[in-house]
């Protein structure tokens, strides 16, 4: 079997395989639901209804999408430069920690000054967390997949230490939980009465900013060149190491904003279960979006919808919630295969 590139794929060829991939995902989910004793044909409907069927559900989906847009952007930016950032989870928590350190009373400023400062410091914290594996890669050639992964475990334990120690809420009755943020540090709602905070708007803005960086700046051009062919980029005079470091700073900062947004916008304090794996899910979002920052928004909606919808479906139909993860993993694997088939044809040899 051999793969032959197709120079001008037809429209059908570009659309059909991804649609089949998504369709197959739904079929597989339905089969699993059937094994769990539920009605397979109702699965899709229950998920959609759970995700978008009511104002409450839709807002819940948008709220869930917000951190996913940030981590999706983080991963998309990094992967595009072939920097395999699997550590968005740790970077997210770094942002959350800084938010809590600065936002629980250490600084007293009006919101218009306090919020941007906290956001900026959160980004710096996330950037530093990714910087370490990035430097290990550029200076020592250590593969960043494993180091960023291991960092997730290390950092989560570190957060646990902090929550049981210096960051512990003095009025928290002994639970490992941080103090609450002061009101000036909270991200306000976008529309009064609607449970949607400014983190969502920031996420959309971040996506647009990343898109502009990639399309219109020299850094965007450099990141893409380095990611596609590092040797050629180096030969041409592109400062590869510097570009990778800048990519790491940007990527880490974006993931940290997810933590900032969840604490300052949604939760108001930090607990160990702040993130149910947003950093890892961001990888799926980025891959489904084919590393395109604007598509990350759509992919994040999709993934958030699946999670929120599956939660609701699981309560309604008695199917374990892990079905959502199964659907996403399946969608991911089938999508990358489908994308390949839109660009290559299989030739018998």
């Amino acid at each position, binding site marked *: 079997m051999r793969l032959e590139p197709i120079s001008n794929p037809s429209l059908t060829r570009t659309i059909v395989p991804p649609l089949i991939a998504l369709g197959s995902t739904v079929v597989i989910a339905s089969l*699993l639901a059937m094994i769990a004793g539920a009605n397979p044909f109702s699965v899709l409907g229950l998920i959609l209804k759970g995700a978008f069927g009511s104002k409450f559900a839709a807002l819940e989906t948008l709220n869930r999408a917000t951190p996913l847009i940030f981590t999706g952007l983080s991963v998309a930016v990094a992967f595009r430069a072939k920097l395999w950032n699997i550590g968005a989870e740790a970077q997210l928590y770094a942002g959350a920690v800084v938010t809590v350190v600065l936002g629980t009373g250490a600084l007293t400023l009006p919101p218009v000054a306090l919020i941007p400062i906290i956001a900026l410091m959160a980004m710096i914290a996330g950037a530093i967390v990714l910087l370490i594996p990035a430097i290990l890669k550029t200076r020592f050639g250590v593969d960043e997949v494993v180091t960023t992964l291991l960092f997730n475990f290390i950092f989560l334990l570190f957060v646990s230490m902090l929550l049981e120690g210096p960051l512990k809420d003095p009025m928290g009755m002994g639970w490992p939980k941080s103090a609450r943020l002061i009101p000036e540090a909270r991200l306000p709602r976008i529309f009064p009465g609607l449970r949607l905070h400014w983190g969502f708007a920031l996420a959309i803005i971040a996506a647009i900013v990343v898109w502009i960086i990639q399309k219109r700046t020299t850094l965007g051009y450099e990141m893409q060149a380095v990611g596609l062919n590092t040797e050629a980029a180096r030969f041409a005079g592109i400062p590869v190491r510097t570009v990778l470091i800048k990519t790491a700073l940007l990527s880490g900062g974006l993931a940290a904003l997810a933590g900032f947004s969840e604490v300052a916008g949604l939760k108001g304090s930090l607990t160990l279960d702040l993130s149910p794996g947003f950093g890892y899910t961001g990888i799926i979002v980025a891959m489904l979006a084919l590393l395109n920052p604007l598509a990350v928004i759509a992919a994040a909606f999709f993934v958030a919808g699946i999670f929120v919808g599956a939660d609701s479906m699981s309560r309604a139909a008695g199917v374990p919630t892990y079905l959502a993860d199964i659907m996403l993993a399946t969608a991911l694997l089938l999508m990358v295969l489908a994308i390949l088939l839109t660009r290559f044809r299989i030739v018998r040899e």
Partner: protein
Amino acid sequence: MDLVDILLSASFWTATIRIASPLIFATMGELICERAGVLNLGIEGIMVAGAFAGWMAVYSGTGLWTGVAIAMLVGMAFGFLHSLLTVPFGLSQHVVGLGLTLLATSLTYFSYRLALPQVTSPPKIQAFEVLPIPVLSDIPIIGPALFAQTPLTYLAFALVLVVSITLYRTPLGLALRAAGENPAAVAAQGLSVTAIRMGAVIVGSGLMAVGGAFLTMSAFDSFFFEMVNGRGWICIALVVFGAWKPGKALMGAVLFAAFDAAQIRIQQTPIGANISYQVFLMMPYLLSILALVAMSRRAEVPAALMVPFNKGER
């Protein structure tokens, strides 16, 4: 109890070898994949799946060794999926591996919830029992450590020998190594790179699953979430640390397990009690990163690792 006491105690070394066993299986599995040229990031998920599959089989009534076999088959099935996407289709090994870890883990948790919906504490099975080898297990300190373990541990050590001999002394091992160094050389000699790489990933994944099964069938006797807890990723570091050689990887696994066993005991010393337990838990991961930095020269990495082979690429 100070450090010297710890190092001289039989229980420390026994724990070390026991902790090392699942790592040995999984590291050998990953080593086989990588020597053939394929990075298998599905290792974490496959270990979870293996842990559950083996345990579940025994819980449902099969014998222990049947359970191990079932775990192995489950691992091989995931390995087949991984290799199908990465070898003939040449998809990104990073993406497929991570996707597979998520798939295997979530399928496992889904199945667990389906099988045991109402449990609050995980049910137990009758796990492998320690099988002391007469005479040898009476040697002070290392006797119990090496010769009073469960049969799965003995299998792990035997496995290292088998992998080593196969890799370096048989035509199959030669072909597998060549597939990881220069697949074009393999194809030019009339062998199928696809078959060799897929076979390696399938067998390697089977071994990873057995490593997971060790946790639920030998080290402990029940399955719970977060059981594998990053061991898969640590095994990837161990393969690098062992410079892709079975013997050295074994030493790495034992060394690592020794640190792990030590930190549990150091926590109980007067000095250790003053340090947060999280610091101790961090140690394995920090050590792995240090191991990777130390081995960063990477002169021995298989030359064609992560390079897909396109037959007759123009």
